[in-house]
């Protein structure tokens, strides 16, 4: 899983069977310091609670579709959870 920030919503007009009502979000991938890294993509929202501005973590590939019910759906990126707090350890000091 990786970090991302929701930057918008999508409203699809026609979707494949099983994807009706699934929220689709624009997600900007982030590095571990919360800085944008790479190009945005569309994620299905497996939590159904994420919204623009929130930091989330997402999963790609087949596991993304497993956030949904039914899970045999054509989805390759999905939001798995919302990040409340990101705690990063300070770099280790060399002896």
């Amino acid at each position, binding site marked *: *899983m990786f970090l991302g920030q929701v930057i918008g919503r999508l409203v699809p007009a026609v979707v494949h069977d099983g994807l009706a009502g699934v929220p689709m979000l624009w997600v900007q991938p982030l590095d571990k310091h919360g800085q944008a890294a790479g190009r945005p993509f569309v994620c299905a929202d497996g939590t159904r609670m994420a919204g623009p501005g929130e930091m989330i973590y997402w999963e790609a590939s087949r*596991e993304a579709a497993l956030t949904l019910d039914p899970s045999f759906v054509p989805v390759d990126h999905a939001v798995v959870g919302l990040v*409340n707090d990101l705690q990063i350890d300070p770099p280790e000091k060399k002896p």
Partner: protein
Amino acid sequence: MILARVSGRITSTIHHPAMDGRRLLLLDRIDARGQATGGYVIAVDTVGAGPGEMVLMLDEGNGARQILGGADLPVRSVVVGIVDDLPG
């Protein structure tokens, strides 16, 4: 499996139901000499790894579901071991 070092933790109260009670670690990918290669990944902890520890991470969905239990777990990255030493 890949080598990584625990560099942080993530707390999440709103998540997919399958993530209830899972401990999420932020891992830095490292090379054979223990140097960070720049990449990171968020993985579910199964071994109780602590800050700064070198760990072994499985990055494959079927194996992850086998370890964590549950056929519909949306997880691919799981910490499966703690590395004591990397000789050589």
